[in-house]
């Protein structure tokens, strides 16, 4: 264990002084501040309306559900922009982790000491985990500090638990990409090849959704709501089987899993309406608070999917690294 910790310490200090990582970290932080600032401004405008008039005339606003103090809608842009950058951070952290040392000759030297390959791989993973945790924690700490400062949202134990669950999800997500980079750095001897392959996987994760409509079309004869509407206008009947495919395909979308953790964890309140059965009736809205323990079941699936991905990738890394020829 001591040996693993020593390697983790060395890996951590290597990563901290890496200028490439520093550049991406600065970008991640800047984008976090930008997107959270917008979210804060939107919250300030919206919370004034909620406080001013909770019960309002039916039809005044098309999207009454968004007029609550629930936080998830203010972090949509944050998730969409920062998560891909964090994935890239994870990949860059590890794409030359093994092959870089192999080319530099330090891996051979390290293995000439009484060190098992297991120690080496676990040390690298632990070093990566430390830096990923540091980056995730600092990013959310700064982001949420700005948001709370701008909006005066009460910092309760409930909110802290929500933020911690998001940080944990982000660490898992970034570690999946760290694992992918590590995997390619074991498979390919050239860092450039490993980087290209890692980037290829990252691009694939970002682009694979574009083929889902085709699969849906080939399986069910239509894809998307537009086509379903067209078919209905032409007198054909459609079922909603394609939405099952859409939901199933989302299981493999790692970014969606993290976004779903973010949305669910920040789902603080809901607006429910009563009355208004006739257009002339007044619709009354009331806001209900959703405690953290109520949203826990919705976090199980995304956390499980991320964990399964992580374990599979690291198991593959372990097997390949054990068999790796080091010359």
């Amino acid at each position, binding site marked *: 264990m001591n040996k693993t910790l020593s390697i983790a310490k060395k890996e951590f200090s290597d990563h901290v002084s890496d200028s490439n990582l520093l550049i991406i970290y600065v970008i991640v932080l800047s984008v976090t501040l930008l997107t959270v600032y917008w979210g804060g401004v*939107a919250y300030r405008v919206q919370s004034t309306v909620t406080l001013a008039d909770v019960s309002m005339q039916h039809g005044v606003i098309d999207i009454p559900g968004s007029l609550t103090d629930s936080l998830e809608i203010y972090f949509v842009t944050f998730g969409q922009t920062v998560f891909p950058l964090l994935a890239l951070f994870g990949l860059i952290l590890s794409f030359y982790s093994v092959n870089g040392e192999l080319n530099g000759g330090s891996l051979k030297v390290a293995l000439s000491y009484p060190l098992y390959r297991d120690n080496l791989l676990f040390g690298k993973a632990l070093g990566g985990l430390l830096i990923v945790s540091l980056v995730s924690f600092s990013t959310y700490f700064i982001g949420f500090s700005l948001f709370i400062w701008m909006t005066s949202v009460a910092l309760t134990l409930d909110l802290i638990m929500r933020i911690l669950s998001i940080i944990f999800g982000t660490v898992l997500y970034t570690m999946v990409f760290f694992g992918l980079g590590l995997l390619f750095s074991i498979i390919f001897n050239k860092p450039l090849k490993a980087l290209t392959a890692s980037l290829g996987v990252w691009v694939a994760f970002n682009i694979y959704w574009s083929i889902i409509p085709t699969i849906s079309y080939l399986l069910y004869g239509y*894809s*998307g709501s537009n086509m379903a509407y067209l078919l209905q206008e032409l007198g054909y009947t459609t079922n909603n089987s394609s939405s099952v495919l859409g939901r199933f395909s989302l299981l493999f979308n790692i970014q969606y899993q993290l976004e779903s953790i973010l949305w669910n964890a920040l789902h603080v309140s809901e607006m429910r309406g009563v009355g208004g059965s006739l257009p002339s009736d007044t619709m009354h809205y009331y806001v209900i608070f959703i405690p953290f323990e109520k949203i826990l079941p919705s976090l199980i699936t995304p956390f499980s999917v991320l964990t399964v991905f992580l374990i599979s990738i690291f198991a593959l890394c372990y097997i390949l690294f054990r068999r790796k020829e080091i010359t």
Partner: protein
Amino acid sequence: LANAFTVAKKELRDSVGDRVFIAIYLILLIIIVTVAIPSAAEQRLSLQLQLQGVSENDSNMSLYDAQRVSASLINSLRTLIPVLSFLCPVLALLISFNSVNGEIEDGSLKVSLSYPLYRDQIFLGKLLNGFFMTFLTSFSAMLVGFAVYIYLSGVAVNLDLLSRILIIAFSTTLYMMIFFSLGLLFSIYFNNPVKSFLLGVITWIIAIDVYKQVINLAAELLFGIRIDQRWGSEIAAYMGYSPSPSNKLSYETFVNICSIFDVNSNYGKILENSLTTLSVISYSAKGFIVNNIYVGAILSTLYNPLTVMLSLIVIINLFSYLLFIRKEVV
């Protein structure tokens, strides 16, 4: 110029033989064809609906629905825009990120310069290769994609459609050339190909994602107005908040000026305008009027984004040229 062509020929052979490039190109091609299949089916249904005259006569249909089911090409091909904007820059970066530093590393640039070859010719050769490659990639991808789309959808092939495809292919070439030029610049500036590739990727992410947000934030900080942020305008209107006309004008002017350099939205604008073939407007209680928008009418909207893209290519390459002339080759 003959020497430059020789260099370009050699570079072209190298690029075409690069396995990573081939892999990403094939992925692009597969995705374009994949997107074309359901898009063509949707277009076929829209055309069928139009033939039956449903959208023109259906008074129960809202204007929004009539617009989204009209047979305008943009409705069925909208998915193509994010796919092309996302993938094309990667391909361009892959062609150029190790163009100069790769050759310095393996020593071939030094050997090339020991022959009677000027640096200008080498640079021009690399640039020509970039143009050929991006041209080849975008035209072949568009040709294959639209061939599948036209075959499956039954869209009439006429001069108007061909002109639109040409405009899209040409603008894709320019869009890719911007990223090719950036890759070339980084490959001259950095001696390590990994660094130039990384910086290329970071620039790509900033260009397609971050830049727009920075502009909006800067405008908001300067003029204190929130206009296009999803529900923001609706809530602001409900609260009776209306920005002063002068502030609103300054905000819009600032965003418009800064957006000139937003490569991604310029490219998106060109694709969107080129694919808009119909406009649907409501016509009292009788339904809707569907008007054709011919390619001639959209040309004026393409002038600005195309000029900006061309200017960016010229500026980046001028800078690269100056750096390459002064580059120490050891």
